[in-house]
Each structure stands twice: as C-alpha cells, then as structure tokens.
C-alpha cells in the first residue's frame, strides 16, 4: 500500500502538476492571443486599426497609410467609365473613389469627403494628386490597413502601380494638400472654406482614447473654432496646442446627456455616460491637463479657477449654480443653456453667445 500509496500519491501529484501546467499554458496562451489581438486591432485613437473600416484624415502634412485597390480599365469592364456624378473618368484620369457604401452619404471611409476633394496619394517613390469623383463599396483590410480608397486605373498607373485587370490592392499613403487660393494661403478664408475639410471620423469608442490626444481633430483656418454640422468643433489652426487638446476632449463627449452630478467621482481621463455642467467643463480642461485627473469640483469651486477675467482663448463663466465657457470663440455649455432658439441640444459646443451677467469670469493662465 505504501508503495502503491506513494505511487498513487505521485500520480496524483503528477496529475495536479499537469493540470496546473495546462492552466498556466492556457493562461499564457490567452494572454498572448489578447496581446496579439490588441496589436492587430489597437491604435484606435488614430482610427487606423486593422479592424477599423474607416480612417480619420489628419490636417495637411499628416499623411497616413491606408489600404487601396484599383478599378476600371480594359480588364475590369464591369466598372464602366462613369463616375458617380456622371464624369467620364477616362477624361479625368486623376480620379479616385472613397469607399464604404453605395451613396455619397454612406461611402465615408475617409470621413465623407466632398465631391472633387483633392488628395495626394503616394505609392513608393511616386506621388500624385487625385480628385474624388466616385464612391464604392468597401472591403476587408489590405495588409492590415482599412481599405478606404479605390484608385481609377489610369491614376494608379500614373503612380507606377502595375495594372492587374482591376485586381491590384496594396497600401498607399494619402494626405490632404495644403490650403490653396490667396485666401487659403493667407489664412483669411472664412467659415465656408473649412467646410471643404470634413470633420474627422472619431474612434468607435471614445472611451478608448484619453483626453489630450488631438489626432483626428478637424482644423479650421484662423483663430476661431468652428461648429461643424455634426456637432463637433473644428479647432483653429492658429491656436496653441492646449486649445486643440481642449477641443479634442470636448468632441469626445459632445451629445452626452445632461445628468446632474454626472461624471463626478470618475477620473477626468474617463468618458462617462453623462455629465453635468461642471464635470463637462472639467473634462475639457483636463484635455489640456489644466486640472488634475481626480478633480471633481462644483461650479462654485470653478469661480476661483485659474486667473481672474477673460482669457485670450478660454474664458470660464462660473457661479454657484452653473458654469460654462468659451474656447476659441465657441461656447461649451449644457442643454439649451441660452434658452429656446439656441439651436443646440445636449452637452457640447454652442453657436450663440449667452448672457454672462451674474457669473465670475476666469481663464487658464496664459490662455
């Protein structure tokens, strides 16, 4: 028995050891799989993850790699020669299609670029300017990059891409060209001009990105922020980086419902399901690291924020019952704070100036 017992004990120990090793290997495997998946699908802040189907085009000078394919030509007769607006693409060889859907409204893999938006496309050492004259369905990722653009075969050929009967696919770099025209170069173009630059598509889950990341924030010429049609704000090109960070942080929570006491108690680095006036203001301020991450003061506490008076870029208006602020000319406020006709709803950027009597004006030092 003892021998048997010892043998039996040893067998039991061996079984336990094997089971432990199995669990350990499984755990390590799981961790490795998670790490692998996070590597493949990570980078959500820049919208360029492999699992993403769209990207956020940055401002001029910030090109990015995307998945591209080609279409048209003698080997792909089914594509025809007409763009979605009736352009004969053979007469416009510098054409591309934005992918992602069946209409101008749904094919938005690059944010929904307007018709005739120029993009510089680079493949290897070759670079050329293309114009959007078409749209098309998307597809799976290409080389781990979201497939967002279809190059008209003549355009692709001009880039040195070999013609493969419309079957070529690969990575290319896309980039917005700089502002053009006298007003664009001189920075004097008005609000309409930046409508040519659509709002960058944000990440699918805003909570995945901590405030402070300004990637994907649309820019508008000049010194004033601009309210976009989707409720987000475009940051002024001439603003300090802190202002762009604040606007990026604000854009993260635009449209969140107003709930008294909402988000208080949570770190400012997190995106909460709802906000009130002070927590929403604090989230935006934290975007530029103007408050500690654990700050959760009430509106009355913000009466002593920063320096007294109005600021060049930012002014908070606080009293015991409410707080709102202006960032580069746009008002950050809660629901219909200017009353009926304000034209806005929910927490976010508001187009109108409101009466600030009864409020204490404060501003961040230097801003």
């Amino acid at each position: 028995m003892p021998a048997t017992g010892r043998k039996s004990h040893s067998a039991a120990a061996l079984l336990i050891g094997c089971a432990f090793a199995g669990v350990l290997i499984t755990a390590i495997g799981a961790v490795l799989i998670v790490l692998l998946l996070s590597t493949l699908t990570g980078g959500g802040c820049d919208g360029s993850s492999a699992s993403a189907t769209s990207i956020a085009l940055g401002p001029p000078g910030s090109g990015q790699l995307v998945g591209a394919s080609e279409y048209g030509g003698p080997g792909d007769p089914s594509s025809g020669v007409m763009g979605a607006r009736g352009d004969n693409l053979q007469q416009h060889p510098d054409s591309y299609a934005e992918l992602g859907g069946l209409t101008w409204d749904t094919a938005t893999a690059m944010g929904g670029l307007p018709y005739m938006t120029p993009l510089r496309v680079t493949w290897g050492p070759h670079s050329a300017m293309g114009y959007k004259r078409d749209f098309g369905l998307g597809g799976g990722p290409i080389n781990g990059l979201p497939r967002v653009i279809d190059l008209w075969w003549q355009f692709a050929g001009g880039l040195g891409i070999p013609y493969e009967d419309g079957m070529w696919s690969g990575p290319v770099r896309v980039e917005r060209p700089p502002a053009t025209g006298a007003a664009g170069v001189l920075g004097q173009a008005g609000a309409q001009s930046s409508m040519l630059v659509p709002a960058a598509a944000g990440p699918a889950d805003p909570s995945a990105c901590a405030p402070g990341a300004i990637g994907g924030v649309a820019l508008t010429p000049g010194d004033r922020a601009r309210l976009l049609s989707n409720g987000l704000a475009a940051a002024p090109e001439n603003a300090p980086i802190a202002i762009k960070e604040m606007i990026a942080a604000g854009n993260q929570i635009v449209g969140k419902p107003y709930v008294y006491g909402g988000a208080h108690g949570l770190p400012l680095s997190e995106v909460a399901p709802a906000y009130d006036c002070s927590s929403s203001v604090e989230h935006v301020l934290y975007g530029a690291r103007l408050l500690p991450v654990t700050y959760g003061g009430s509106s009355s506490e913000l009466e002593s924020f920063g320096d007294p008076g109005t600021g060049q870029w930012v002014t908070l208006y606080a009293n015991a019952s409410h707080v709102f602020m202006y960032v580069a000319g746009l008002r950050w406020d809660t629901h219909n704070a200017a009353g009926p006709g304000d034209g806005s709803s929910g927490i976010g950027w508001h187009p109108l100036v409101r009466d600030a009597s009864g409020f204490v004006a404060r501003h961040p030092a230097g801003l």
Partner: protein
Amino acid sequence: MRGVALAALGVLALSGCGGGGQSKVAQANTTHEYPSPRPPAPAVSGGEPDAVAAIRAFANAYINWTADSVASQMRSLAAHSIGQARSAMQLAAGQTAGDYELQRGGIANSGTVEAIAPLAEHRDEYVVVTRELTTATDSTAYQGLRPAWHVALASVVKLGDGRWVLSRWQPEN
C-alpha cells in the same frame, strides 16, 4: 445769493451734465477711462470710378502675387481700402512679410476674376468669384493641384470725391 449762483454754475461746469461741458478729468473720474483723441481719418489712395471696377482691381491684386511681392501688394491694398478691408490687408501684409515658409517654398498664387455680382437686397455688397491656382517653386506640396473656384464677399463705399473703395473683403473659401 450771487455767490451761490456762481458756485452752482461752477459745479455744473465741473460735473458736466451736457456732453460738451464735461472736462476730461471729470469724465475719467466718472467712467474710469480717459478718452483718447479721435484718430485722424485714414488717407485713402487709389479708388475707381465705379464699384465693380474697384472690386475687380482689388480682387486681381489680391489673388495675383508671388512670395516676394505678396507683402507689398497687401500693403498697397490696405492703402487703397478702408474699414475691415484695410485691417485685413494690413494683417496679411504683416504676416506675409515674415513668413519663412512662404519664402522658402517659393509659393505664388495666380488667377482671374470670373464674376462680380451684386448681392440681392444688400446695397453696395457683391459676391466675387475667382479661379485661382497656387504653386510653389521649391515645394511639391501643390504639385498636381488644379485651379479651383473661390468666392469672396466684398463691400464698397463711395468716397466724397466720387472714388469707390473696398470697405470689406471676406473670402469664403
């Protein structure tokens, strides 16, 4: 009694109920601001005999320049305009004079004025359509870009001597 009347007159003169009678010191004590002297009216050179000609001349100069000429052209446009247009051109002149990127890239802009039309129900306001091409001799950033349409809003003013000058220039894109 006469003394009281004189004193009352003196108080009235100092406190200045009427605008013209108030001393600057009294006004400063009341409003905590000391009024600065009214600036002299800016001298305006140039100008055209009619509104459309004034806009065409302005727009042509605004869109046709090189990196070397842009600052002086904007200064010239400022001297030929008033109000917001003058301020905007002065700002452009100041910014472009020291714009290293503009110089380094050899950036130039050229174009034509394609249309000038009065805005309905807006007296002396016009919409201006131009077609412009931006190029650079020492940068590839603009390579391959086609000429593009641009729109600006312009307001004009007729001066006392009959010349028309721009008072507002607001490019929309």
